[in-house]
């Protein structure tokens, strides 16, 4: 079974700073997908960024980028020029590649607070 671990329960940075959220995972699969989801106070889960394990290039989406280290099974999220609206819970998630109705396996989450 796959497991996802987020070792930072809470983080807090000043607006405009850069912050990195950590995530490690355990799997015997070779092909899979990794995601970061954001859960603001409204509680809805919103996709931030997605990485395909067979791609060596790290995914980027505007101010959000990942550092994917497959051998180390590490998938960290970097938020550059942080904004007040980035305040949320962030969940790292794993999905197997094989099959259609694959589920997401989530980490415990990191509560990120951006201070003005």
């Amino acid at each position, binding site marked *: 079974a796959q497991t996802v671990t987020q070792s930072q329960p809470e983080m807090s940075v000043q607006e405009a700073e850069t912050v990195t959220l950590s995530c490690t995972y355990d799997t015997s699969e070779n092909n899979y997908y990794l995601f970061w*989801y954001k859960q603001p106070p*409204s*509680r809805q*889960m919103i996709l931030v960024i*997605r990485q395909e394990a067979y791609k060596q290039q790290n995914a980027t989406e505007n101010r959000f980028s990942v550092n994917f280290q497959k051998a180390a099974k590490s998938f960290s999220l970097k938020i550059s020029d942080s904004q007040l609206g980035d305040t949320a819970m962030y*969940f790292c998630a794993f999905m197997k590649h094989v099959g*259609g*109705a694959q589920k*997401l396996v989530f980490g415990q989450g990191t509560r990120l607070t951006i201070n003005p």
Partner: protein
Amino acid sequence: EPEVTQTPSHQVTQMGQEVILRCVPISNHLYFYWYRQILGQKVEFLVSFYNNEISEKSEIFDDQFSVERPDGSNFTLKIRSTKLEDSAMYFCASRLSGGGTEAFFGQGTRLTVV
């Protein structure tokens, strides 16, 4: 922009009562899911549904739980006899296709069992 819609947003029920949580997935999506999040904890998978049948269910999804897609648009989660520990946020999600396509989540239903 298409979205997953869940109703109600909050439901309070007495222990032992049946509840039905409703979801309208994005219309052309093929894969449907229920997840739950006990307050302050991580999001946990309950069940996946494809081609009008359950694809996978977790150990949480015991005989008290059932899912249905009765009319091709709604996707429901029924808890037959609620327990206090069923109190949680329940999220519905849908995906267009397999592979690593994005799961779109609804805004959740907060279930409180008293």
